[in-house]
């Protein structure tokens, strides 16, 4: 007997459970697939490592000074010391510039920075892409022509130009990157929405009297976000890579900040004198951080692709 679903005593919890059940099932299945892909696991391990560093930096390098993101000075060690020296496991720069300390607190800085840039960019991109794709017509044209402009300049160069006029500092790097990164998501989401809105279940929802907003957010968005999740995962790495480049070029973090690119910049001149560790370790950590997100993103692309899913 098929009981009329509306007759069931529907508490809020019950309704929520019913609505979420298929999503949770799919999520479980995704995680199952993820656990079978070796490269995704490798990426995940790297990311968990960085996440622990980012969440509990004080466990590994107790905060020193007023601002923990500034690498502390120590006048008793005027010259760079090699890795393994007393008090400097990864070596130091001049005046006790502790590479290990910078790497630990740099993990927190990079993680927070990437989450903020990617989060805001995804939000802007999703809203604009959804409106453009769903509405179509003049609004679509307008939004997409503006998006095209941002995508028609190589992103590193656009970021550099904006960061330059905003002046050096982490907050201008942040703004410069958000100004550039939203455009990619707008294009991806809009492309997906165009395809998804033709589905029969969208017409069905409309016929059942769903409002525009409900259709957009309940029916179209959940079926459109997969490619942009992959993109966002990859961009977490890209953002850190671009921030490091900005700092290396003297347009990002102030010198002395526990930011990996700024640390490489600090060490570049000392490499001539054979002090390789000042450049090697921060650069290696950037690479591992970015590699982690790339591995995971790659794995997720295969998993979320409906053609390869089952």
């Amino acid at each position, binding site marked *: 007997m098929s009981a009329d679903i509306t007759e069931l005593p529907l508490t809020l919890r019950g309704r929520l459970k019913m609505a979420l059940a298929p999503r949770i099932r799919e999520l479980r299945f995704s995680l199952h697939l993820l656990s079978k892909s070796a490269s995704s696991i490798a990426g995940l391990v790297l990311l968990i490592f960085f996440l622990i560093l980012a969440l509990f930096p004080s466990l590994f390098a107790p905060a020193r000074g007023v601002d923990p993101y500034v690498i502390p000075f120590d006048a008793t060690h005027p010259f760079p010391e090699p890795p393994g020296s007393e008090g400097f496991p990864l070596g130091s720069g001049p005046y006790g510039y502790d590479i290990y300390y910078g790497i630990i607190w740099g993990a927190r800085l990079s993680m927070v920075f990437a989450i903020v840039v990617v989060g805001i960019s995804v939000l802007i991109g999703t809203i604009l892409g959804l409106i453009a794709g769903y509405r179509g017509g003049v609004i679509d044209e307008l939004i997409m022509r503006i998006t095209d402009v941002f995508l028609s300049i190589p992103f590193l160069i656009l970021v550099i130009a904006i960061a330059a*006029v905003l002046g050096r500092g982490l907050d201008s790097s942040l703004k410069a990157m958000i100004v550039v990164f939203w455009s990619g998501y707008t294009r991806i989401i809009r492309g997906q929405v165009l395809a998804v809105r033709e589905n029969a279940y969208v017409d069905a929802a409309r016929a059942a009297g769903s409002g525009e907003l409900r259709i957009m957010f309940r029916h179209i968005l959940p079926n459109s976000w997969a490619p942009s999740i992959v993109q966002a995962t990859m961009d977490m790495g890209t953002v850190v890579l671009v921030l490091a480049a900005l700092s290396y070029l003297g347009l990002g973090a102030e010198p002395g900040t526990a930011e990996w690119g700024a640390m490489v910049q600090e060490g570049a001149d000392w490499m001539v004198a054979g002090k390789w560790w000042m450049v090697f370790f921060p*650069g290696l950590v950037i690479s591992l951080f970015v590699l982690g997100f790339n591995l995971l993103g790659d794995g997720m692309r295969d998993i979320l692709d409906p053609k390869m899913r089952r």
Partner: protein
Amino acid sequence: MTYIIRRLLLLIPVLIGVSILTFFIINSAGDPVTPYLQNPEHTTPEQRQLIIEKYHLDEPPYIRYFYWLSNVLHGDLGYSTEAGGLPVTEAIAKKFPATFELTLIAMFFSIVFGISLGTISAVRANSPVDQSTRILALIGVSIPVFWLGLMLLYVFYYQFNIHDMMPAGRYSKPDFVDDDITFYTNFYLIDSILNGNPRLFWNVLMHLILPSITLAFASTAIIIRIMRASMLDVLGAEYVVSARAKGLPERVVIRKHARRNAMIPTTTVIGLSFGGLLGGAVVTETVFNWPGLGQWSIKAAQNLDTGGIMGFTLLVAIIYVLANLVVDVIYAYLDPRVRLD
């Protein structure tokens, strides 16, 4: 043909948008007079007034934009203090060849290695060759360009003592003097041959190796990945199966039937990675002290030389947009299905 014309027409709104964006960026830098000052420290208030009148800088922004655009179209982009007070257009002309030579060689490297490694990787999927190529490609997109450059320098210059690889421009200055060389093309590899100077050729080549490897690495990785993926797609296609079934040698199947078709998506990515190369050139030139557009633009950005920033951004945007146009046209040529819609 109509396809090309339609693509060209589509460029117009993009270019207008790019110009508005650039104008907006430069205007948020503050003083709109700056780009037009050849020597900011020795400018009298009267001269400033003259510049304001000449360029209509006292008008509101939306009117100023049109004056600015008309000046840009007439080739007047102001002056670049970072290029020693040269007009921006002359600075670009002077610094372009260094960047072009470097980018061209890097592009050549990444296309050759990207396509061949991507093909091998797909043909021998899951073999050790494939695994190591995939790891190489992943590393390529993950490591910072400047770090790769610095580490290469450390190994080859400081450890192996190869002094011709010194990060000091396009050839060793004390060994060769500008005045002794005639620069015909400003491509130093070609010029050294035209000068009949094999020692200079060798020197120029040695200076080019590390920067071009550094610059090529990331785009090689991107091309490997897309080439491998599209080769795998194509190798499962029916026309490949039928080519094999009619007894063609495997080499012919791979080269003529599979790779040609796999090249179609790869072409697009090569065009896109050109933008990455231009961005990478900025970083690479800074690491290797390469006297090109990238190094100039970074100095301009560091010292708020607005004329320089504006000129470089506009130039790169135009080159990139045109490169994508060329790619689309090649794409249409390679894939007849595109021309039909």
